[in-house]
């Protein structure tokens, strides 16, 4: 045995771990910083320190008593939930029709969907606004949910269709021979086999309303109807230096559930993205 070799290998190992620790600190520093800021007694960005002199939860209390944060939270949760449910229903039904049937206009539909998802959402903004105004759905959550759902269909349907295609044809056909109707094949055979991709669609569409800024700002006009993304952005833009710690508390309140959800379900996310991108 040669000792220098072992020492060298040991030293490399230690160095790699030190390097990883340093990078990890950089990686999660912003997260620690925002959590600490939210517990700081002061209000301003300037006075907040990484290690607070004394910890307070008063900003969390103020968030609910002095701003509409609770309301925004419920709005976002509601919009996210219904967007998720509607998107999954629409996406799955559309993908099923496109994958399992051969009919006139099928290729045209597929091609159109591919083209549609490449348009920047801005292009349709003005007209969406006018249409919602006309049917009286401007400034309503339902209007926003419908807009999100319509936007989710083209990409989602492509993805799920690809997944359905990979399920051996013999399975639904066997069920049909046994006398199952189209509806039954769909619910009893296809759906259970596609849980991973459906989870992915559900998760991405649940998360989208938490992040979206553009459409929410366009459709929702009244302060009490705002979503978290708009509310928190305005808090930072207008009052960064006076209410910074309150923003920090709000950020933590949003980040914790979403991050936990994401980490738990990350394997579906990774699989879903891989499905849509590579898989050659």
């Amino acid at each position, binding site marked *: 045995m040669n000792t220098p070799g072992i020492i060298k290998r040991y030293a490399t190992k230690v160095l790699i771990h030190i390097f990883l620790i340093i990078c990890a600190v950089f990686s999660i520093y912003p997260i620690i910083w925002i959590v600490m800021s939210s517990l700081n007694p002061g209000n301003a960005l300037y006075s907040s320190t990484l290690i607070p002199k004394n910890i307070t939860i008063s900003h969390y209390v103020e968030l609910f008593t002095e701003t509409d944060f609770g309301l925004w939270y419920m709005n976002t949760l509601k919009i996210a939930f219904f967007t998720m449910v509607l998107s999954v229903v*629409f996406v799955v039904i559309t993908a099923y*029709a496109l994958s399992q049937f051969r009919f006139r206009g099928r290729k045209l539909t597929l091609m159109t969907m591919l083209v549609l998802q490449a348009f920047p959402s801005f292009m*349709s903004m003005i007209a969406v606004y*006018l*249409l919602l105004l006309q049917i009286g759905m401007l400034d309503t959550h339902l209007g926003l949910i419908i807009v999100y759902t319509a936007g989710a269909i083209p990409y989602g349907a492509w993805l799920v269709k690809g997944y359905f295609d990979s399920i051996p044809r013999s399975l639904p056909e066997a069920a049909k021979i046994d006398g199952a109707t189209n509806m039954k094949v769909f619910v009893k055979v296809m759906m259970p086999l596609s849980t991973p991709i459906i989870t992915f669609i559900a998760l991405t569409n649940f998360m989208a309303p938490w992040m979206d*800024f553009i459409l929410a700002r366009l459709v929702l006009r009244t302060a009490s109807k705002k979503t978290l993304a708009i509310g928190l*952005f305005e808090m930072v833009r207008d009052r960064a230096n006076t209410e910074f710690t309150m923003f920090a508390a709000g950020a933590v309140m949003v980040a914790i559930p979403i*991050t936990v959800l994401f980490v738990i379900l*990350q394997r579906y996310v990774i699989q879903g993205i891989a499905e849509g*991108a590579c898989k050659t």
Partner: protein
Amino acid sequence: MVRYSAKAGVLSAIFMGLGQLYNRQVVKGILFLLAEILYIIFILPYNIESIRGLITLGDKPQEIVDGKIIQGDHSIFLMVFGIISVIVLLLFIVFYLLNIRDAIAVGKQREHGRVPAGFINSLKTASEKGFPYLFLSPAVILILFITVVPLIFGILIAFTNYSSPDHLPPRNLVDWVGFDNFINLFKLSTFSRTFFGVALWTVVWAVVSSVTAFFTGMFFAVLINSKGVAVKKFWRTIFILPWAMPGFISILIMRNMFNGQFGPINKYLQAIGLGAVPWLADKTWAKITCLLVNLWLAFPYYMAMISGVLTSISNELYEAASIEGANAVKQFTKITLPIVMYSTAPLLIMGIAHNFNNFNLIYLLTMGNPTNTSYSYAGHTDILLSWLYKLTLDQSQFHMASVVSIIIFVIVAVMSVINFSYTKSFREEDMVQ
């Protein structure tokens, strides 16, 4: 032999349902007949009116008579309803053609001596054949109104002068101007300077931000996957956190951290004796800040995706390589890199397309600032999409915004077709020859 099919076809072409009646399919014939009568009475007048509106975009401007405002035509509403009318008309034409086709088909059956199917039987066949259409219709209707109509509208705006201050309904009318806006984008010096300046930065931003994040992600994926590293799962979870956080929250946090006056980063730099850096105020630093923030946000995504690929590479490959005497570097360049690049190149393309339109990062972090005085309505860090946002929502320059978005669409569409051509969903359709 009687030519039932030709007669039935001609009859159905003259008026919907006549051919079916001739074929002795009474119920079906009457239903078709009724459909056309209803269309002519209730929808056609409206269709003609609104298609005329689409062509003229209104001819009665708003007037003020005796201090009272008399509403004129609202060009933009005329346009939206005109588009919807054209779609309704097209759907009716398709329906009409189906009616003729049906009459001919049934006529042919009679020529072969078969008795035409009764109404109940026709319904049954229709529901079997129509199943996919039934399934598709909710999505199609939704997409038609929320996506297709608005998009056609958005494209048509590029050929009008819809803009502030002189062509803004309801006060003024909007007119068709042909390709003037496209010509102006390149001819008017302020617009062309802004367009090319912003477009250049958009491309640089999209490519550099994605490539840096991709290779940083690969670096960490390979490092964590290497033999010497303990508790791999722990490291992966730690490094995935920036990606797992809601994006807009991270960006807003970063905006505060990089705050030039009060942010912690500058406080630390000053504490260790280095000067404060104008992270968001200086034009070059602001661009670097955008790239840094994106790196932090996006490298975990690539790390996670590449880790997945790494675990699928068989260990035997590496063992064989080390027997052959290949060192770690050689193993990386000859085995790991080719395999990873082969299966994740589409992700990189997708990332570039995503960052090309990464409105959230730019707008929430810098709002496109610092402002560039030689640009029209854009700042140094504005990408095409955030410029578009400002043109539309702050400046009401709808016509120019529409021209720019058509250009963005062409670029993104090309990228996404390239990307989709890799996917299984696409390949099985034989859409690429």
